[in-house]
């Protein structure tokens, strides 16, 4: 028994060695699938656990609300809202910062904390330094990411314009907060830890600086177990409304959390979809190779049965072979996954700030990878194994009958005169095994589709950049005033050094209602002839704010279930809080935020106010940028500045690097699939047809001519696969845009022709290369031997 199994095992190892090229290609495909799976799910696990722990330990709030100025006793009303567990009131302000080595101004968010220690919610994690001292003048603790980028350490100072006065912030501590795992500000596309820093200061100081004694303008709460978040939000809105409340929101809409959740969701999607594609291809290839192996080993199988091996032993023998290939694939895949996961985690630690974040490989991920791959492979090859098991010994001793062929559809259509015998050989072969051909074709289509999907992101980003920053936002800076101001503030901004053009805007918080659906947004009033912040409608045309009515961003219209022509109820949440009915005149195709736009004069009329401005869009002379920036940093009354160039630059920095890395992996994975499919198909074709090909060589065909027969089939499949793959890829991209769409941003479905071309080229190159590897074997066809023996 021992000897018997061990010689059968030896056969197994030798068979495997004999087909090492094919097995290697399959191992690569499996490893790619397992690697992506392990990378995504293990990183996801680590990220998820780290996030949960940070949130729990630091008591991250669940509902967030801000208002203009509410007296402290309102806090009691908030705590009394049914379902609220804890509430923490505070003062939150955005100010302009002057960072010495950075020409452009940055935005600082000042958040009040108790002087004597941690707040009840959103506790800080101290990295370095100490908590602020009671009475310590201008002491602040700063977010780690911002501090790191600017080399700030405890003892350093940062200049801020606080309520119109230059003030030094003395940094005493470097901290992390569950609210700012990512340092992101509303209205921006991406986190920008370089130009957005968060500072925690004593409440007493902020009260004094901003005239907030005995009051707060921000509150965060946690919920009791089982409390209804929407209900708490509704009640909280009622409480804060008289104090200029601009709408509470849950964690899901909290910027840092939302961004992080999106990343987790994306990882989960990758982790679940990628293995399906790769394992699908791998199972197909295993099937192909095993079928071939069993066909060539018919006589061996018969002999084994004749010696007395049982069906079970034969079945186990071939299953072992599958398991061996799969096993190697899984091992390589897990190693690949750990490597990629560790890399991804390193990348994440640059962006996401947690007290500690390490890559760990959970055992259950490895077990799932093994289980998933093993089951897929065994189930996928069971039919072939069964064939070996059921082969009657006597029949197996006889060679397989010659393959029967029939004329193809082309020929039945009477087109045969256009086809040479070689072309007919290729077409008939394809038609004879349509399922195999279709699956090979599908595999190659996947290559194209993966490439399209992988590169579509950079097309979409290009589109965003062009539409957003070249066509639409043509201003160089957007300044927001501390408070809605008279026209003088606008003229002051207009006269900053280097400013060549300026347009005012008015922003008011409002609740838009369409039947039962409602949403709190900021309505922006723009000049009808606005050139600096143009609006682009869904047809790509520039539209002006209408004299009467609203322009809505597409995402917002979807949320409200409204379309152009519908009447919306507008409840303004500022000033005299008027309510109006206005029609939607058109939808705007913007990428970030849920926005509504009006004519600025119509907005003034609605607000029953004079020419009030909330801020201005500025165009500046690039020659005078430094002077412009310098003055911006020092202008009181300007609460914050968003600079277009800087935004584009940070966008490029963040996205470009990740895109290149992503692309490398995607091209690699796609090439693996193309190689796996083409190499295996060609190798098997070569084995099956070596007799045919040798005959052709004997009767005078050259190597090149014979190779056409061998590779022509694959060329046809590749040519068919490319358009199919492009359509598939476009579908994947469409699914991805839908998957990525959130209230914060939207990714346009744009696939450039170059992306399609690139996908086709990489696929053709991979196919060609693997075809050539096999073609080299044509040179070694043994003409004499192959003619003598019957297969």
């Amino acid at each position: 028994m021992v000897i018997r199994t061990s010689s059968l095992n030896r056969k197994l190892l030798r068979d495997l060695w004999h087909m090492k090229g094919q097995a290697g290609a399959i191992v690569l495909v499996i490893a790619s699938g397992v690697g992506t799976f392990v990378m995504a799910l293990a990183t996801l696990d680590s990220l998820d656990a780290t996030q949960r722990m940070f949130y729990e330990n630091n008591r991250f709030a669940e509902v967030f609300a801000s208002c203009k100025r509410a007296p402290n006793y309102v806090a009691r009303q908030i705590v009394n809202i049914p379902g609220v567990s804890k509430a923490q009131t505070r003062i939150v302000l955005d100010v302009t910062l002057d960072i010495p080595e950075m020409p452009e101004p940055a935005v600082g968010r000042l958040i009040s904390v108790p002087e004597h220690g941690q707040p009840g919610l959103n506790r800080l994690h101290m990295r370095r330094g100490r908590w602020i001292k009671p009475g310590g003048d201008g002491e602040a603790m700063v977010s780690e990411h911002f501090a790191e980028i600017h080399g700030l350490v405890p003892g350093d100072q940062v200049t801020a314009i606080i309520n119109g006065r230059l003030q030094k912030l003395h940094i005493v501590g470097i901290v992390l907060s569950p609210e700012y795992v990512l340092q992101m500000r509303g209205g921006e596309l991406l986190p920008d830890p370089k130009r957005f820093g968060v500072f925690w200061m004593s409440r007493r100081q902020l009260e004094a600086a901003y005239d907030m004694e005995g009051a707060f303008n921000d509150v965060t709460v946690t919920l009791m177990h089982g409390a209804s978040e929407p209900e708490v939000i509704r009640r909280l809105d009622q409480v804060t409304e008289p104090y200029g409340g601009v709408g509470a929101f849950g964690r899901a809409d909290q910027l840092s959390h939302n961004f992080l959740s999106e990343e987790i969701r994306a990882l989960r999607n990758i982790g679940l979809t990628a293995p399906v594609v790769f394992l699908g291809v791998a199972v197909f290839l295993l099937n192909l190779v095993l079928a071939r192996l069993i066909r060539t080993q018919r006589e061996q199988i018969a002999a084994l049965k004749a010696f007395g091996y049982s069906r079970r032993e034969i079945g186990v023998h071939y299953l072992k072979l599958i398991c061996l290939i799969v096993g190697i694939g899984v091992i390589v895949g897990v190693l690949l996954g750990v490597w990629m996961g560790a890399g991804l985690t390193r990348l994440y630690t640059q962006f996401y700030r947690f007290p500690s974040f390490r890559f760990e490989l959970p055992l259950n991920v490895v077990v799932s990878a093994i289980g998933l791959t093993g089951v897929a492979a065994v189930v996928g090859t069971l039919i072939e194994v069964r064939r070996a098991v059921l082969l009657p010994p006597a029949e197996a001793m006889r060679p397989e009958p010659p393959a029967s062929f029939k004329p193809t559809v082309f020929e039945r259509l009477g087109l045969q005169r256009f086809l040479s015998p070689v072309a007919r050989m290729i077409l008939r072969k394809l038609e004879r095994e349509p399922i195999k051909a279709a699956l090979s074709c599908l595999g190659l289509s996947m290559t194209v589709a993966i490439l399209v999907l992988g590169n579509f992101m950079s097309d979409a980003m290009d589109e965003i950049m062009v539409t957003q920053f070249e066509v639409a936002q043509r201003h160089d800076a957007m300044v927001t005033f501390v408070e809605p101001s008279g026209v003088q503030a606008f003229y002051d901004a207009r006269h900053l050094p280097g400013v060549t053009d300026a347009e005012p805007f008015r922003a008011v918080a409002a609740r838009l209602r369409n039947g039962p659906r409602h949403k709190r947004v900021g309505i922006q009033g723009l000049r009808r002839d606005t050139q600096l912040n143009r609006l682009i409608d869904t047809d790509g045309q520039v539209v002006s704010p209408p004299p009467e009515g609203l322009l809505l961003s597409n995402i917002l219209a979807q949320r409200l279930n409204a379309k152009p022509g519908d009447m919306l109820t507008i409840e303004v949440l500022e000033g005299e809080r008027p309510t109006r009915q206005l029609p939607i005149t058109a939808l705007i195709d913007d990428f970030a935020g849920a926005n509504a736009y009006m004519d600025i004069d119509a907005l003034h009329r609605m607000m029953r106010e004079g020419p009030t401005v909330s801020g201005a869009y500025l165009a500046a002379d690039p020659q005078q940028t430094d002077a412009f920036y310098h003055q911006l940093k020092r202008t009181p009354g300007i609460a914050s500045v968003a600079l277009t160039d800087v935004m584009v630059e940070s966008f490029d920095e963040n996205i470009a690097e990740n895109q290149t890395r992503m692309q490398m992996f995607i091209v690699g994975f796609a090439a693996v699939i193309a190689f796996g499919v083409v190499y295996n198909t060609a190798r098997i074709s070569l084995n099956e047809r070596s007799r045919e090909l040798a005959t052709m060589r004997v009767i005078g065909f050259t190597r090149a001519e014979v190779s056409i027969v061998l590779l022509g089939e694959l060329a046809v499949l590749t040519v068919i696969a490319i358009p199919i793959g492009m359509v598939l890829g476009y579908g994947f991209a469409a699914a991805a845009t839908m998957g990525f769409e959130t209230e914060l941003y939207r990714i346009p479905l744009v696939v450039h022709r170059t992306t399609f071309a690139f996908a086709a080229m990489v696929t053709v190159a991979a196919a060609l290369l693997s075809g050539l590897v096999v073609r080299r074997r044509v040179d070694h066809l043994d003409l004499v031997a192959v003619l003598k023996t019957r297969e």
Partner: protein
Amino acid sequence: MVDAPPTALSSRAVFTARQITKVYHMGEVEVPALRGVDVELYAGEFVVLLGASGSGKSTLLNILGGLDVPTSGVVHYEGEELTAYDDASLTRYRRRHVGFVFQFYNLIPSLTARENVALVTEIADQPLDPVEALKIVGLGERVDHFPSQLSGGEQQRVAIARAIAKRPEVLLCDEPTGALDVKTGIIVLEAIERVNRELGTTTAVITHNAVIADMADRVIRLSGGRVSQVTQNEHKRSATELQW
């Protein structure tokens, strides 16, 4: 040893092989297949190479057909030194001048009879029409059948048609009836005989079946890698008269 040219036919030697040896290296063992063979094939003659298995007859045929190269010795074809050819020249040589018929037919299963022949006529200079070639072997009625729809004898005759369609100077047949029963074997031999007679193609047939030697102009016997005997048939018999 120089053979006397056959009387009735031309005295022009198409092939001249001198001191051909062939040693196969099977792992660490050297297996000599030919040990110094001198042989001529004359234009238009029908030669049977007779020998037991392992006598070296296939090796000799493969060398003449440009499928294999000798370890030493020289082969001339129409005055050209075949043994000096590289692979590309050998391919060209096979393409232009040689027709092969194999024991196991080696038809392309995905091509019909006509297309199997056309496969060759497309790369030949002055080929026969494929249907015409099939008519010569008596298969004018089955041109659109696939190999799987033909009997063994029919498949072999398609193979002969394929071999002669390019009007080769030489037709080399390696055990053409080896896989066939007597009746079909004779039909196949008739086809070969007819090609030799009507197209004047120099024909060499390998066999271990001594009966077939009766239909040759000349019989070259090989044993142990050497030519043991060359005989001239005074009375050629036609294939239909053969029995085994």
